[in-house]
């Protein structure tokens, strides 16, 4: 056991061979002491990256990476689907399909609008930004709407994150549910003095919070 603890530094430096790495990772999964130590030693190992030496990557590397990422994304929207097939080609079956695609497109368009609205809020240089307490992240309030950035993974199974706008001395107003951390648009726009809070609720969301907030931000 003790021998495995001693491997933490080597693991942080990527200095174990493949077998050693596998054995250590199995141990790590169940050892809190090593998890804590590894977090600290990995930060120190990463500092070594900054002392590696100065080098400028070729300018085209950035574009190559972004192109490859773009080509890979699974949730990419194939815009050409929005064009309808020529009418004369429609059979009854095809007609049903087009109606289906139409509905799908409406949903998709809604999602796209949501995303671009979110981007507009996040990118607004004039927005008010307040850091969350309780969890990493922030609330961004712009003329264009309000967004919440929450640095957490997925909500627990069968649960959802729910955002709230809480007026000073008033009852919390539901501001949307989401299943994983990241950036989301809030429903409604918080005003000065309101608190934005996030709770974990049962799947589907609730009308009033039933748990203590995991994160809050009070707007000035």
């Amino acid at each position: 056991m003790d021998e495995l603890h001693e491997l933490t530094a080597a693991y942080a430096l990527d200095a174990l061979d493949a077998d050693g790495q596998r054995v250590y990772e199995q141990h790590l999964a169940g050892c809190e002491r090593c998890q804590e130590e590894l977090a600290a030693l990995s930060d120190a190992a990463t500092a070594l990256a900054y002392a590696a030496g100065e080098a400028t990557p070729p300018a085209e590397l950035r574009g190559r990476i972004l192109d490859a990422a773009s080509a890979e994304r699974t949730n990419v929207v194939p815009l050409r689907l929005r064009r309808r097939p020529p009418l004369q080609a429609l059979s009854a079956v095809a007609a049903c399909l087009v109606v289906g695609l139409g509905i799908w497109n409406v949903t998709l368009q809604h999602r796209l609008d949501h995303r671009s609205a979110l981007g507009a809020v996040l990118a607004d240089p004039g927005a008010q930004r307040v850091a969350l307490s309780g969890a990493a992240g922030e609330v961004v309030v712009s003329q264009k709407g309000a967004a919440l950035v929450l640095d957490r993974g997925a909500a627990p199974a069968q649960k959802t994150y729910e955002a709230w706008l809480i007026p000073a001395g008033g009852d919390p107003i539901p501001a949307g549910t989401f299943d994983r951390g990241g950036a989301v648009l809030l429903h409604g726009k918080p005003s000065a003095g309101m608190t934005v809070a996030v709770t974990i609720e049962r799947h589907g969301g609730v009308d009033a919070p039933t748990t203590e907030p995991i994160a809050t931000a009070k707007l000035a």
Partner: protein
Amino acid sequence: MARELAHLSDEAVLALVARSEEPALAEIYDRFGAVAYGLALRVLRDEGLAQDAVQDAFLTVWRTARTFAAERGAARTWILTLVHRRAVDLVRREQRRRTDPLESAPEPVAAEQTDQLAWLRFERERVQAALRKLPDQQREALELAYYGGFSQSQLAERLGEPLGTIKSRMHTGLARLRELLEAEDTQWTSSTS
């Protein structure tokens, strides 16, 4: 768009990457591309391989950002660990280790991005200064492992020392480096507050 994310923390930008926001990946590259490439080049000593390592690592960031847990560590540690691991995988595969991994080969630097470069230089000097304060044998073990891509058993063989000695040098050296860097952080904070 990408630079407009500049006010967000690394962790918040990574949360956007997890939602497949391409500008967020561009922002992550703008923040870490240069240090990632410098690291990969130091380990691999080959520009083509270094680019491959950086590209593989950033695509891993793109694919797996949702598995990053902010409460378990900083985004920069996660990203640069992916880069380092990929570079070490490649160097072990390519057997391109040199006998002089301690020498670095600086490249000419483009004139733009001067703010970021100034910060990178500051950070580099800070870490190099901390490294210089380590006893020689500890510094050697850290540098050969991290920049040379040697495993602890290869190091023991190369230096003609028992494995236990190498393990203990790496451990003591890394823990000491951490203390030195933290002590400096504290000084920095107190001198500016």
